[in-house]
């Protein structure tokens, strides 16, 4: 049971749009162990976000089954909290209130107001944003917004943390900083993480396994690279590590040789 905490079997995804039928994903089979860090990588349009949304329950598969902890994923749930690509914080609420909204929903029935407050503050502290508690999203930087998004997701103590290109819109330095923070947080909380990315270094640095997807339409899982680098990982030390280079080359090889970028998506 431990090695198939998330169990995806024979998932097909077909969208019926105005332009016609679009076959996004085919024959997706994937098992994720508890506490594992998985990244989904592939060219744009390969359906990696679709797969993440399926796990989140925001989409329903056309065919196949998705299980989480042996129960079918029937819809979105705070158990599988999502860190959205564009942070999706509510602009009329402060950072504290944005996080509290989720905390209240998950723990409100069982805990006192003081406990809920404590949880919210703990989540803010976890991402180092205690000082920004009373600020609204437009008053803080992009990196800080994304950290609040992560704090909101983590505060609900999810079984699975789903991240859709969480650092995609950030500059390289902020991104590196947040990756390091994420590594620490995940090590501390032992979260199961599924993350969509298009950054090869990010994938190798963070993942236990890198799931590489073929080009769409009808994309599927092409190869899976198991990253056997011991944790905690240090980005500077890894930069000259031969194994790191090997994993990196393997992913690049897949993306740019075997699945050369489709011209239309350029």
């Amino acid at each position, binding site marked *: 049971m431990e090695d198939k905490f998330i169990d995806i079997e024979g998932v097909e995804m077909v969208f019926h749009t105005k332009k016609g039928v679009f076959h996004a994903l085919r024959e997706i089979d994937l098992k994720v162990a508890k506490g594992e860090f998985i990244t989904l990588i592939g060219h744009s349009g390969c359906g990696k976000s679709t797969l993440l949304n399926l796990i989140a329950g925001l989409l329903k598969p056309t065919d196949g089954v998705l299980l989480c902890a042996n129960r079918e994923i029937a819809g979105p749930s705070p158990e*599988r909290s999502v860190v*959205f690509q564009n942070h999706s914080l*509510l602009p009329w*609420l402060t950072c504290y209130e944005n996080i509290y909204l989720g905390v209240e929903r998950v723990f409100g029935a069982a805990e006192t107001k003081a406990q809920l407050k404590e949880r919210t503050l703990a989540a803010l502290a976890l991402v180092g944003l205690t000082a920004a508690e009373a600020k609204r999203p437009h008053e803080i930087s992009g990196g800080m917004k994304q950290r609040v998004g992560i704090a909101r997701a983590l505060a609900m103590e999810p079984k699975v943390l789903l991240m859709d290109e969480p650092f995609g819109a950030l500059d390289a330095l902020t991104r590196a900083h947040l990756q390091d923070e994420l590594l620490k947080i995940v090590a501390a909380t032992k979260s199961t993480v599924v993350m969509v990315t298009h950054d090869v270094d990010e994938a190798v640095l963070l993942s236990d396994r890198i799931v590489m997807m073929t080009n769409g339409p009808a994309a599927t899982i092409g190869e899976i690279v198991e990253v056997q680098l011991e944790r905690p990982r240090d980005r500077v030390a890894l930069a000259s590590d031969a194994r790191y280079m090997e994993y990196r080359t393997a992913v690049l090889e897949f993306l740019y040789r075997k699945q050369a970028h489709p011209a239309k998506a350029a």
Partner: protein
Amino acid sequence: MNAMLKPDSAEPVVAALTPEAKPARRPRRPLAANSTARARAQVSATALKIIAPLMGAALLVLVWQIITVKNSSFPTPAATLEEAVKLFSDPFYRNSPNDQGIGWNLLASLQRVGVGFGLAALVGIPLGFLIGRVQFVSAMFSPIISLLKPVSPLAWLPIGLLVFKSANPAAIWSIFICSIWPMIINTAIGVQRVPQDYMNVARVLNLSEWKILTKILLPSALPFVLTGVRLSIGTAWLVIVAAEMLTGGVGIGFWVWDEWNNLNVPHIIIAIGAIGLVGLLLEQALVALARAFTYEQVSN
């Protein structure tokens, strides 16, 4: 959305219109010349903001003056101004029900607009939320709204008179009818346009319908609702004058009609100015309100 509300988008146009710009010689210009150019641009900006409107007003007065030269029944600007000073020096007198100060008349009209508009907001905004949120309700009401929206609110006045058997509620009824459409429609659009990202957050957090309404739909749709409110108030203020001309009683519309019967043309012109001013103030107040409640949307 913020950008749309900002009035200073006219600035670059000012620069383009100034004749000082000589592109051929510009590269050789020393730094000092640049600062004088900037000063000149500033002067032309003030010219556009202050001098141009004043010139427009002067032109209007001039045309008015020319008309009065040809037409002796039309009062001159000076005579009208004199009359206005007299009128506004005592706006709140009461001689008889049909002879009251212009202040009372304006207040009576504003009160009708307030009541009719308030009732319309009470019905229209919740209905707009329902229509925006529930597709079935939208399908139910959309054809009716499309059919009734283009009807002049004055056409509803006889129905009001029939039902309420009195002039005042009938006028309020017309205001209610004309104010309700923009509020329903804008609220519904606002609710339908709540970004999908926010709705995804609501789904992942598994928020209750009440929390979705208060924490997501309401704040997100508020700018649209306020646009509806602004359009409604504008229309209501247009309609009240016409409605009061038909119903009589105290009110600026009736006052205009009464002064026409007295052939007091200066008072009619003053009333037009006063109606315009009140309408402008209502509009400005609501624009300020809308700006205070507009949030930046999600972006990368």
